[in-house]
Protein backbone atom coordinates (compact mmCIF):
# COMPACT_ATOMS: atom_id res chain seq x y z
CA UNK A 1 0.00 0.00 0.00
CA UNK A 2 2.78 2.40 0.89
CA UNK A 3 5.34 2.24 -1.84
CA UNK A 4 7.88 4.55 -0.33
CA UNK A 5 11.24 4.46 -2.00
CA UNK A 6 12.56 7.76 -0.75
CA UNK A 7 13.92 7.33 2.74
CA UNK A 8 14.03 3.56 2.71
CA UNK A 9 17.13 1.47 3.30
CA UNK A 10 17.91 -1.48 1.03
CA UNK A 11 20.48 -3.73 2.67
CA UNK A 12 22.79 -4.99 -0.06
CA UNK A 13 26.44 -5.36 -0.85
CA UNK A 14 28.04 -2.70 -3.02
CA UNK A 15 30.87 -0.24 -3.01
CA UNK A 16 28.45 2.56 -2.21
CA UNK A 17 26.98 0.61 0.70
CA UNK A 18 30.43 -0.02 2.12
CA UNK A 19 31.46 3.63 2.15
CA UNK A 20 31.74 5.25 5.55
CA UNK A 21 28.54 7.16 6.33
CA UNK A 22 30.61 10.26 7.00
CA UNK A 23 32.08 10.30 3.53
CA UNK A 24 28.64 9.76 2.06
CA UNK A 25 27.16 12.56 4.14
CA UNK A 26 29.92 14.96 3.21
CA UNK A 27 29.61 13.99 -0.44
CA UNK A 28 25.87 14.56 -0.50
CA UNK A 29 26.27 17.85 1.30
CA UNK A 30 28.91 18.99 -1.17
CA UNK A 31 26.90 17.73 -4.08
CA UNK A 32 23.82 19.68 -3.10
CA UNK A 33 25.95 22.84 -3.07
CA UNK A 34 27.90 22.34 -6.28
CA UNK A 35 24.75 21.45 -8.17
CA UNK A 36 24.04 25.16 -8.21
CA UNK A 37 27.19 25.77 -10.23
CA UNK A 38 25.71 23.95 -13.17
CA UNK A 39 24.23 26.43 -15.62
CA UNK A 40 25.22 24.88 -18.91
CA UNK A 41 24.28 21.76 -20.83
CA UNK A 42 27.70 20.25 -20.33
CA UNK A 43 27.60 20.74 -16.57
CA UNK A 44 24.12 19.26 -16.34
CA UNK A 45 25.15 16.25 -18.36
CA UNK A 46 28.09 15.77 -16.02
CA UNK A 47 25.69 15.82 -13.07
CA UNK A 48 23.38 13.28 -14.67
CA UNK A 49 26.29 11.02 -15.52
CA UNK A 50 27.54 11.25 -11.95
CA UNK A 51 24.13 10.17 -10.66
CA UNK A 52 23.92 7.36 -13.15
CA UNK A 53 27.35 6.09 -12.13
CA UNK A 54 26.31 6.28 -8.49
CA UNK A 55 23.19 4.24 -9.11
CA UNK A 56 25.15 1.65 -11.09
CA UNK A 57 27.74 1.36 -8.33
CA UNK A 58 25.07 0.94 -5.67
CA UNK A 59 23.54 -2.01 -7.57
CA UNK A 60 20.07 -0.69 -6.90
CA UNK A 61 17.85 -1.25 -9.88
CA UNK A 62 17.11 1.83 -11.95
CA UNK A 63 13.36 1.08 -12.29
CA UNK A 64 13.12 0.94 -8.49
CA UNK A 65 14.56 4.44 -8.22
CA UNK A 66 12.32 5.70 -11.00
CA UNK A 67 9.31 4.40 -9.17
CA UNK A 68 10.40 6.43 -6.16
CA UNK A 69 10.72 9.51 -8.34
CA UNK A 70 7.20 9.04 -9.61
CA UNK A 71 5.86 10.12 -6.26
CA UNK A 72 7.44 13.56 -6.65
CA UNK A 73 6.59 13.89 -10.34
CA UNK A 74 3.88 16.42 -9.50
CA UNK A 75 6.33 18.70 -7.75
CA UNK A 76 8.79 18.44 -10.60
CA UNK A 77 6.16 19.18 -13.24
CA UNK A 78 4.81 22.07 -11.20
CA UNK A 79 8.24 23.68 -10.92
CA UNK A 80 8.88 23.06 -14.58
CA UNK A 81 5.74 24.78 -15.79
CA UNK A 82 5.92 27.56 -13.27
CA UNK A 83 9.36 28.43 -14.55
CA UNK A 84 8.41 27.92 -18.15
CA UNK A 85 5.46 30.31 -18.02
CA UNK A 86 6.76 32.99 -15.77
CA UNK A 87 10.29 33.73 -16.79
CA UNK A 88 11.40 35.39 -19.95
CA UNK A 89 14.45 36.16 -22.06
CA UNK A 90 15.75 35.01 -25.40
CA UNK A 91 13.70 34.22 -28.47
CA UNK A 92 9.93 33.89 -28.21
CA UNK A 93 9.19 30.24 -29.01
CA UNK A 94 5.48 29.95 -28.53
CA UNK A 95 2.62 32.20 -27.68
CA UNK A 96 -0.77 30.86 -26.67
CA UNK A 97 -3.11 33.54 -25.43
CA UNK A 98 -1.56 34.88 -22.26
CA UNK A 99 1.14 32.23 -22.20
CA UNK A 100 4.44 33.16 -23.76
CA UNK A 101 7.27 30.71 -23.80
CA UNK A 102 10.75 32.01 -24.29
CA UNK A 103 13.86 30.08 -25.24
CA UNK A 104 15.79 30.94 -22.10
CA UNK A 105 12.85 30.09 -19.93
CA UNK A 106 12.65 26.67 -21.52
CA UNK A 107 16.34 26.00 -20.99
CA UNK A 108 16.23 27.28 -17.43
CA UNK A 109 13.22 25.10 -16.65
CA UNK A 110 14.98 22.03 -17.96
CA UNK A 111 18.03 22.86 -15.86
CA UNK A 112 15.94 23.34 -12.76
CA UNK A 113 14.24 20.01 -13.27
CA UNK A 114 17.59 18.32 -13.70
CA UNK A 115 18.79 20.04 -10.54
CA UNK A 116 15.84 18.80 -8.48
CA UNK A 117 16.17 15.38 -10.00
CA UNK A 118 19.86 14.90 -9.26
CA UNK A 119 19.53 16.25 -5.73
CA UNK A 120 16.70 13.84 -5.00
CA UNK A 121 18.46 10.91 -6.64
CA UNK A 122 21.64 11.53 -4.66
CA UNK A 123 19.89 11.94 -1.32
CA UNK A 124 17.73 8.93 -2.04
CA UNK A 125 20.85 6.99 -2.87
CA UNK A 126 22.24 8.00 0.50
CA UNK A 127 19.26 6.66 2.41
CA UNK A 128 18.94 3.59 0.19
CA UNK A 129 22.52 2.55 0.82
CA UNK A 130 23.01 3.69 4.41
CA UNK A 131 21.07 2.35 7.35
CA UNK A 132 19.41 4.96 9.58
CA UNK A 133 21.77 3.83 12.30
CA UNK A 134 24.82 4.62 10.19
CA UNK A 135 23.40 7.95 9.06
CA UNK A 136 22.84 9.16 12.58
CA UNK A 137 26.18 7.81 13.76
CA UNK A 138 27.88 9.64 10.94
CA UNK A 139 25.89 12.77 11.62
CA UNK A 140 26.69 12.72 15.31
CA UNK A 141 30.33 12.17 14.56
CA UNK A 142 30.51 15.01 12.06
CA UNK A 143 28.67 17.37 14.37
CA UNK A 144 30.57 16.40 17.49
CA UNK A 145 32.67 19.60 17.47
CA UNK A 146 29.45 21.43 18.36
CA UNK A 147 29.29 19.53 21.63
CA UNK A 148 31.96 21.95 22.82
CA UNK A 149 29.47 24.79 22.69
CA UNK A 150 26.92 22.66 24.57
CA UNK A 151 24.71 21.76 21.65
CA UNK A 152 22.88 18.51 22.50
CA UNK A 153 24.25 16.71 19.45
CA UNK A 154 23.92 13.26 20.91
CA UNK A 155 20.30 13.81 21.89
CA UNK A 156 19.44 15.14 18.45
CA UNK A 157 21.11 12.16 16.84
CA UNK A 158 19.18 9.83 19.12
CA UNK A 159 15.92 11.54 18.34
CA UNK A 160 16.64 11.31 14.67
CA UNK A 161 17.58 7.65 14.74
CA UNK A 162 14.47 6.79 16.71
CA UNK A 163 12.18 8.64 14.37
CA UNK A 164 13.84 7.14 11.32
CA UNK A 165 13.63 3.73 12.89
CA UNK A 166 9.92 4.11 13.57
CA UNK A 167 8.76 5.45 10.23
CA UNK A 168 8.34 1.98 8.71
CA UNK A 169 6.81 0.69 11.93
CA UNK A 170 4.25 3.45 11.96
CA UNK A 171 3.45 2.91 8.30
CA UNK A 172 2.93 -0.77 8.98
CA UNK A 173 0.76 0.10 11.92
CA UNK A 174 -1.28 2.52 9.84
CA UNK A 175 -1.83 -0.16 7.26
CA UNK A 176 -3.01 -2.58 9.92
CA UNK A 177 -5.42 -0.08 11.41
CA UNK A 178 -6.79 0.85 8.01
CA UNK A 179 -7.45 -2.83 7.43
CA UNK A 180 -9.03 -3.35 10.82
CA UNK A 181 -11.40 -0.42 10.31
CA UNK A 182 -12.12 -1.34 6.71
CA UNK A 183 -13.19 -4.75 7.98
CA UNK A 184 -15.72 -2.92 10.14
CA UNK A 185 -17.07 -1.06 7.15
CA UNK A 186 -15.24 2.23 7.50
CA UNK A 187 -14.01 3.61 4.23
CA UNK A 188 -11.81 6.60 3.53
CA UNK A 189 -11.14 6.03 -0.09
CA UNK A 190 -14.60 6.88 -1.35
CA UNK A 191 -17.61 8.94 -0.42
CA UNK A 192 -17.97 12.65 0.16
CA UNK A 193 -15.17 14.73 1.62
CA UNK A 194 -17.06 15.07 4.89
CA UNK A 195 -17.45 11.30 5.22
CA UNK A 196 -13.81 10.77 4.45
CA UNK A 197 -12.75 13.26 7.08
CA UNK A 198 -14.96 11.50 9.57
CA UNK A 199 -13.40 8.17 8.65
CA UNK A 200 -9.98 9.54 9.57
CA UNK A 201 -10.78 9.66 13.28
CA UNK A 202 -10.95 5.87 13.71
CA UNK A 203 -7.56 5.74 12.04
CA UNK A 204 -5.79 8.51 13.93
CA UNK A 205 -6.91 7.67 17.45
CA UNK A 206 -5.50 4.13 17.55
CA UNK A 207 -2.42 5.31 15.71
CA UNK A 208 -1.65 7.97 18.32
CA UNK A 209 -2.48 5.66 21.16
CA UNK A 210 -0.09 3.03 19.90
CA UNK A 211 2.62 5.58 19.09
CA UNK A 212 2.49 6.96 22.63
CA UNK A 213 2.49 3.48 24.05
CA UNK A 214 5.47 2.59 21.93
CA UNK A 215 7.36 5.68 23.06
CA UNK A 216 6.67 4.84 26.67
CA UNK A 217 7.74 1.23 26.24
CA UNK A 218 10.87 2.26 24.41
CA UNK A 219 11.90 4.72 27.11
CA UNK A 220 11.31 2.09 29.74
CA UNK A 221 13.26 -0.54 27.80
CA UNK A 222 16.17 1.85 27.27
CA UNK A 223 16.37 2.74 30.93
CA UNK A 224 16.06 -0.88 31.93
CA UNK A 225 19.11 -1.58 29.82
CA UNK A 226 21.09 1.17 31.46
CA UNK A 227 20.87 4.00 28.96
CA UNK A 228 21.94 7.24 30.60
CA UNK A 229 22.70 9.64 27.81
CA UNK A 230 25.89 10.45 26.04
CA UNK A 231 28.57 10.63 28.70
CA UNK A 232 30.63 7.50 29.07
CA UNK A 233 28.82 5.73 26.29
CA UNK A 234 30.87 3.43 24.07
CA UNK A 235 29.98 2.31 20.56
CA UNK A 236 29.37 -1.13 19.15
CA UNK A 237 30.09 -0.08 15.60
CA UNK A 238 33.07 2.19 15.30
CA UNK A 239 33.14 4.29 12.18
CA UNK A 240 36.16 3.50 10.07
CA UNK A 241 37.50 5.85 7.44
CA UNK A 242 38.95 3.73 4.64
CA UNK A 243 40.91 4.42 1.52
CA UNK A 244 37.73 4.22 -0.53
CA UNK A 245 36.32 7.09 1.51
CA UNK A 246 39.33 9.21 0.67
CA UNK A 247 38.85 8.21 -2.96
CA UNK A 248 35.21 9.31 -2.69
CA UNK A 249 36.34 12.69 -1.41
CA UNK A 250 38.71 12.96 -4.34
CA UNK A 251 35.91 12.19 -6.75
CA UNK A 252 33.80 14.91 -5.19
CA UNK A 253 36.67 17.38 -5.40
CA UNK A 254 37.13 16.43 -9.02
CA UNK A 255 33.43 16.90 -9.73
CA UNK A 256 33.50 20.30 -8.08
CA UNK A 257 36.58 21.25 -10.07
CA UNK A 258 34.97 20.20 -13.34
CA UNK A 259 31.82 22.15 -12.60
CA UNK A 260 33.77 25.25 -11.66
CA UNK A 261 35.89 24.92 -14.76
CA UNK A 262 32.87 24.51 -17.01
CA UNK A 263 31.26 27.51 -15.42
CA UNK A 264 34.24 29.82 -15.69
CA UNK A 265 35.08 28.78 -19.22
CA UNK A 266 31.47 29.55 -20.03
CA UNK A 267 31.24 26.90 -22.70
CA UNK A 268 27.81 25.76 -23.91
Amino acid at each position, binding site marked *: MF*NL*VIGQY*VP*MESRVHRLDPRSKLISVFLFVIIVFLANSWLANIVLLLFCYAGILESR*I*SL*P*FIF*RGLRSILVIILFTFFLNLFFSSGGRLLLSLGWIHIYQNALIQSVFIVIRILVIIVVTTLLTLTTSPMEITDGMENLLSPFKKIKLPVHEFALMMSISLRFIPTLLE*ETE*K*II*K*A*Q*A*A*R*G*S*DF*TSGSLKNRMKAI*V*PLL*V*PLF*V*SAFKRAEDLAMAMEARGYHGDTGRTRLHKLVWNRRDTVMMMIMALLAAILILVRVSGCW
Partner: protein
Amino acid sequence: MTHIYNSKTPFERAALDHVSLKISSGSFTSLIGHTGSGKSTLVQHINGLLRPSSGSISVGDFVIEPQKKKQDLKPLRARVGYVFQYPEHQLFEETAIKDVCFGPMNFGVSAAEATKRAEECLTLVGLPSLFWHRSPFDLSGGQMRRVAIAGVLAVHPEVIILDEPTAGLDPHGQKEIMELFHKLNKNSKLTIIMVTHNMGDAALYSDQILVMEAGQLKMSGAPEEIFSREQDLRNMGLDVPETMVFLDKLTDKLGLEKGRPVFTLSETADRVADLLNGGAAHV
Protein backbone atom coordinates in the same frame (compact mmCIF):
# COMPACT_ATOMS: atom_id res chain seq x y z
CA MET B 1 -4.13 -18.06 -5.55
CA THR B 2 -0.79 -16.37 -5.02
CA HIS B 3 0.06 -13.27 -3.04
CA ILE B 4 3.28 -11.33 -3.44
CA TYR B 5 4.06 -8.50 -1.03
CA ASN B 6 5.93 -5.43 -2.30
CA SER B 7 5.84 -6.72 -5.81
CA LYS B 8 8.60 -5.37 -8.09
CA THR B 9 10.77 -3.92 -5.34
CA PRO B 10 13.91 -5.30 -3.72
CA PHE B 11 11.66 -6.35 -0.84
CA GLU B 12 9.49 -8.58 -2.97
CA ARG B 13 8.39 -11.80 -1.35
CA ALA B 14 5.76 -14.37 -2.06
CA ALA B 15 3.69 -14.85 1.06
CA LEU B 16 1.27 -17.26 -0.57
CA ASP B 17 2.27 -19.66 -3.27
CA HIS B 18 -0.52 -21.22 -5.32
CA VAL B 19 -2.91 -21.95 -2.51
CA SER B 20 -6.24 -23.56 -3.37
CA LEU B 21 -8.91 -24.35 -0.88
CA LYS B 22 -12.59 -24.55 -0.24
CA ILE B 23 -14.46 -23.74 2.93
CA SER B 24 -18.08 -24.82 3.15
CA SER B 25 -20.59 -22.51 4.78
CA GLY B 26 -21.56 -23.40 8.31
CA SER B 27 -18.26 -25.14 8.94
CA PHE B 28 -15.57 -24.46 11.52
CA THR B 29 -12.16 -24.35 9.88
CA SER B 30 -8.85 -23.93 11.66
CA LEU B 31 -5.68 -22.73 10.05
CA ILE B 32 -2.44 -23.79 11.67
CA GLY B 33 1.16 -23.27 10.68
CA HIS B 34 4.45 -21.93 11.85
CA THR B 35 4.94 -18.18 12.43
CA GLY B 36 5.26 -16.40 9.10
CA SER B 37 3.75 -19.24 7.10
CA GLY B 38 1.14 -16.93 5.56
CA LYS B 39 -1.95 -17.66 7.63
CA SER B 40 -2.91 -14.04 8.24
CA THR B 41 -2.17 -13.17 4.63
CA LEU B 42 -4.44 -15.96 3.46
CA VAL B 43 -7.43 -15.03 5.59
CA GLN B 44 -7.16 -11.35 4.71
CA HIS B 45 -8.08 -12.28 1.17
CA ILE B 46 -11.40 -13.69 2.27
CA ASN B 47 -12.98 -10.31 2.97
CA GLY B 48 -11.06 -8.43 0.34
CA LEU B 49 -8.56 -6.66 2.59
CA LEU B 50 -5.87 -7.96 0.29
CA ARG B 51 -6.12 -8.72 -3.39
CA PRO B 52 -4.45 -11.78 -4.83
CA SER B 53 -1.48 -11.25 -7.13
CA SER B 54 -2.92 -14.03 -9.25
CA GLY B 55 -5.85 -16.37 -8.93
CA SER B 56 -9.25 -15.56 -7.49
CA ILE B 57 -11.41 -15.87 -4.42
CA SER B 58 -15.14 -16.34 -4.41
CA VAL B 59 -17.30 -15.79 -1.38
CA GLY B 60 -20.98 -16.42 -2.10
CA ASP B 61 -21.59 -14.41 -5.27
CA PHE B 62 -18.58 -12.16 -4.73
CA VAL B 63 -15.50 -12.76 -6.84
CA ILE B 64 -12.23 -11.02 -6.04
CA GLU B 65 -9.67 -11.02 -8.80
CA PRO B 66 -6.34 -9.26 -9.25
CA GLN B 67 -7.12 -7.05 -12.25
CA LYS B 68 -10.67 -6.15 -11.50
CA LYS B 69 -11.04 -2.51 -10.67
CA LYS B 70 -11.93 -1.57 -7.14
CA GLN B 71 -15.42 -2.77 -6.53
CA ASP B 72 -17.59 -1.94 -3.59
CA LEU B 73 -16.51 -4.42 -0.96
CA LYS B 74 -18.75 -3.09 1.78
CA PRO B 75 -21.52 -5.67 1.29
CA LEU B 76 -18.88 -8.40 1.41
CA ARG B 77 -17.43 -7.00 4.61
CA ALA B 78 -20.86 -6.86 6.20
CA ARG B 79 -21.11 -10.59 5.63
CA VAL B 80 -17.55 -11.53 6.53
CA GLY B 81 -16.38 -10.27 9.92
CA TYR B 82 -12.73 -10.19 10.87
CA VAL B 83 -11.21 -10.20 14.35
CA PHE B 84 -7.61 -9.05 14.06
CA GLN B 85 -4.57 -10.52 15.73
CA TYR B 86 -4.19 -7.50 18.02
CA PRO B 87 -7.42 -5.82 19.00
CA GLU B 88 -6.02 -2.54 20.26
CA HIS B 89 -5.48 -1.71 16.61
CA GLN B 90 -9.09 -0.89 16.07
CA LEU B 91 -10.49 0.58 19.27
CA PHE B 92 -10.92 4.34 19.12
CA GLU B 93 -14.23 5.49 20.57
CA GLU B 94 -14.77 7.15 23.92
CA THR B 95 -16.53 4.17 25.40
CA ALA B 96 -16.44 0.46 24.78
CA ILE B 97 -20.09 0.33 23.84
CA LYS B 98 -19.74 3.11 21.26
CA ASP B 99 -16.85 1.23 19.75
CA VAL B 100 -18.99 -1.86 19.36
CA CYS B 101 -21.66 0.25 17.62
CA PHE B 102 -19.15 1.53 15.08
CA GLY B 103 -19.34 -1.54 12.85
CA PRO B 104 -23.12 -1.90 12.62
CA MET B 105 -23.60 1.83 12.07
CA ASN B 106 -21.12 1.80 9.21
CA PHE B 107 -23.26 -0.82 7.59
CA GLY B 108 -26.38 1.28 7.90
CA VAL B 109 -27.93 0.05 11.13
CA SER B 110 -29.78 2.71 13.15
CA ALA B 111 -28.21 4.02 16.35
CA ALA B 112 -30.88 2.50 18.56
CA GLU B 113 -30.61 -0.90 16.92
CA ALA B 114 -26.80 -0.73 17.05
CA THR B 115 -26.86 0.00 20.78
CA LYS B 116 -29.19 -2.93 21.32
CA ARG B 117 -26.90 -5.20 19.37
CA ALA B 118 -23.86 -3.86 21.19
CA GLU B 119 -25.38 -4.67 24.56
CA GLU B 120 -26.25 -8.16 23.39
CA CYS B 121 -22.80 -8.81 22.02
CA LEU B 122 -20.92 -7.40 24.99
CA THR B 123 -22.94 -9.72 27.20
CA LEU B 124 -22.21 -12.57 24.86
CA VAL B 125 -18.44 -12.05 25.04
CA GLY B 126 -18.66 -11.79 28.79
CA LEU B 127 -17.59 -8.22 29.43
CA PRO B 128 -19.15 -7.11 32.74
CA SER B 129 -21.49 -4.17 32.19
CA LEU B 130 -19.53 -1.90 34.49
CA PHE B 131 -16.88 -1.67 31.76
CA TRP B 132 -19.30 -0.79 28.97
CA HIS B 133 -19.12 2.94 29.53
CA ARG B 134 -15.40 3.13 30.19
CA SER B 135 -12.81 4.16 27.67
CA PRO B 136 -11.64 1.11 25.73
CA PHE B 137 -8.06 2.19 26.40
CA ASP B 138 -8.52 1.76 30.14
CA LEU B 139 -9.33 -1.91 29.67
CA SER B 140 -6.89 -4.77 29.99
CA GLY B 141 -5.63 -6.54 26.89
CA GLY B 142 -8.07 -9.39 27.39
CA GLN B 143 -10.99 -7.04 27.89
CA MET B 144 -10.01 -5.08 24.77
CA ARG B 145 -10.05 -8.32 22.88
CA ARG B 146 -13.58 -9.01 24.07
CA VAL B 147 -14.70 -5.55 22.98
CA ALA B 148 -13.10 -6.08 19.59
CA ILE B 149 -14.82 -9.43 19.19
CA ALA B 150 -18.15 -7.92 20.24
CA GLY B 151 -17.59 -5.16 17.67
CA VAL B 152 -17.36 -7.74 14.93
CA LEU B 153 -20.24 -9.91 16.17
CA ALA B 154 -22.51 -6.85 16.34
CA VAL B 155 -22.42 -6.56 12.55
CA HIS B 156 -24.15 -9.97 12.44
CA PRO B 157 -21.88 -11.49 9.83
CA GLU B 158 -22.39 -14.90 8.27
CA VAL B 159 -18.70 -15.69 8.30
CA ILE B 160 -16.25 -14.77 11.02
CA ILE B 161 -12.49 -14.79 10.59
CA LEU B 162 -10.56 -15.05 13.82
CA ASP B 163 -6.86 -14.36 13.83
CA GLU B 164 -5.57 -15.94 17.03
CA PRO B 165 -8.66 -14.93 19.00
CA THR B 166 -7.50 -16.29 22.32
CA ALA B 167 -3.96 -14.93 22.39
CA GLY B 168 -3.50 -12.85 25.54
CA LEU B 169 -6.51 -14.21 27.38
CA ASP B 170 -6.30 -16.11 30.65
CA PRO B 171 -6.98 -19.87 30.39
CA HIS B 172 -10.52 -19.48 31.63
CA GLY B 173 -11.18 -16.63 29.22
CA GLN B 174 -9.73 -18.64 26.35
CA LYS B 175 -12.12 -21.44 27.05
CA GLU B 176 -15.06 -19.06 27.35
CA ILE B 177 -14.34 -17.39 24.02
CA MET B 178 -13.79 -20.69 22.25
CA GLU B 179 -17.02 -22.06 23.66
CA LEU B 180 -18.78 -18.92 22.45
CA PHE B 181 -17.58 -19.39 18.90
CA HIS B 182 -18.36 -23.08 19.06
CA LYS B 183 -21.90 -22.26 20.12
CA LEU B 184 -22.30 -19.61 17.42
CA ASN B 185 -21.09 -22.12 14.88
CA LYS B 186 -23.42 -24.89 16.01
CA ASN B 187 -26.53 -22.88 16.86
CA SER B 188 -26.44 -19.88 14.55
CA LYS B 189 -24.72 -21.72 11.68
CA LEU B 190 -21.98 -19.09 11.59
CA THR B 191 -19.09 -20.08 9.37
CA ILE B 192 -15.89 -19.76 11.37
CA ILE B 193 -12.36 -19.56 10.05
CA MET B 194 -9.81 -19.45 12.82
CA VAL B 195 -6.06 -18.95 12.75
CA THR B 196 -4.54 -20.49 15.83
CA HIS B 197 -1.37 -21.75 17.42
CA ASN B 198 -3.31 -23.76 19.93
CA MET B 199 -3.49 -27.31 18.62
CA GLY B 200 -5.95 -28.30 21.32
CA ASP B 201 -8.47 -25.66 20.18
CA ALA B 202 -7.95 -26.57 16.54
CA ALA B 203 -8.54 -30.24 17.27
CA LEU B 204 -11.46 -29.78 19.57
CA TYR B 205 -13.64 -27.36 17.67
CA SER B 206 -12.91 -27.70 13.96
CA ASP B 207 -14.56 -29.67 11.21
CA GLN B 208 -11.61 -29.01 8.96
CA ILE B 209 -7.98 -28.17 9.60
CA LEU B 210 -5.67 -26.51 7.09
CA VAL B 211 -1.93 -26.69 7.59
CA MET B 212 0.28 -24.00 6.05
CA GLU B 213 4.01 -23.94 5.61
CA ALA B 214 6.08 -21.29 3.85
CA GLY B 215 3.12 -19.93 1.91
CA GLN B 216 1.88 -23.29 0.77
CA LEU B 217 -1.07 -25.35 1.87
CA LYS B 218 0.53 -28.58 3.04
CA MET B 219 -2.40 -30.58 4.42
CA SER B 220 -6.12 -30.28 4.83
CA GLY B 221 -8.65 -32.58 6.40
CA ALA B 222 -10.55 -33.52 9.51
CA PRO B 223 -8.70 -33.09 12.83
CA GLU B 224 -8.26 -36.84 13.30
CA GLU B 225 -6.76 -37.21 9.88
CA ILE B 226 -4.36 -34.29 10.35
CA PHE B 227 -3.20 -35.19 13.81
CA SER B 228 -2.56 -38.81 12.96
CA ARG B 229 0.23 -37.53 10.71
CA GLU B 230 2.20 -36.52 13.76
CA GLN B 231 5.61 -36.90 12.16
CA ASP B 232 4.75 -34.61 9.24
CA LEU B 233 3.48 -31.99 11.66
CA ARG B 234 6.61 -32.16 13.76
CA ASN B 235 8.71 -31.70 10.64
CA MET B 236 6.90 -28.41 10.08
CA GLY B 237 7.61 -27.32 13.63
CA LEU B 238 4.05 -27.99 14.75
CA ASP B 239 2.72 -29.97 17.64
CA VAL B 240 -0.18 -32.28 18.38
CA PRO B 241 -2.75 -31.62 21.13
CA GLU B 242 -1.69 -32.26 24.71
CA THR B 243 -4.18 -35.08 25.06
CA MET B 244 -2.39 -36.97 22.32
CA VAL B 245 1.03 -36.25 23.75
CA PHE B 246 -0.16 -37.58 27.07
CA LEU B 247 -1.60 -40.76 25.59
CA ASP B 248 1.50 -41.37 23.51
CA LYS B 249 3.65 -41.14 26.61
CA LEU B 250 1.33 -43.50 28.43
CA THR B 251 1.21 -46.10 25.67
CA ASP B 252 4.99 -45.87 25.44
CA LYS B 253 5.34 -46.55 29.15
CA LEU B 254 2.99 -49.48 29.00
CA GLY B 255 4.64 -50.76 25.85
CA LEU B 256 1.38 -50.66 23.96
CA GLU B 257 0.52 -49.50 20.47
CA LYS B 258 -0.59 -45.95 19.71
CA GLY B 259 -4.31 -45.50 19.27
CA ARG B 260 -6.59 -43.24 17.27
CA PRO B 261 -6.15 -39.54 18.14
CA VAL B 262 -8.52 -38.21 20.79
CA PHE B 263 -8.96 -34.58 21.77
CA THR B 264 -11.44 -34.13 24.59
CA LEU B 265 -10.54 -34.73 28.21
CA SER B 266 -13.35 -37.21 28.79
CA GLU B 267 -12.36 -39.29 25.78
CA THR B 268 -8.81 -39.24 27.04
CA ALA B 269 -9.94 -40.41 30.45
CA ASP B 270 -11.89 -43.23 28.84
CA ARG B 271 -8.86 -44.27 26.87
CA VAL B 272 -6.65 -44.17 29.95
CA ALA B 273 -9.10 -46.31 31.84
CA ASP B 274 -9.14 -48.79 28.98
CA LEU B 275 -5.36 -48.87 28.80
CA LEU B 276 -4.98 -49.34 32.53
CA ASN B 277 -7.48 -52.18 32.47
CA GLY B 278 -5.12 -53.84 30.08
CA GLY B 279 -7.58 -53.23 27.31
CA ALA B 280 -5.11 -52.87 24.50
CA ALA B 281 -7.45 -55.03 22.47
CA HIS B 282 -9.88 -52.16 22.39
CA VAL B 283 -7.63 -49.95 20.29
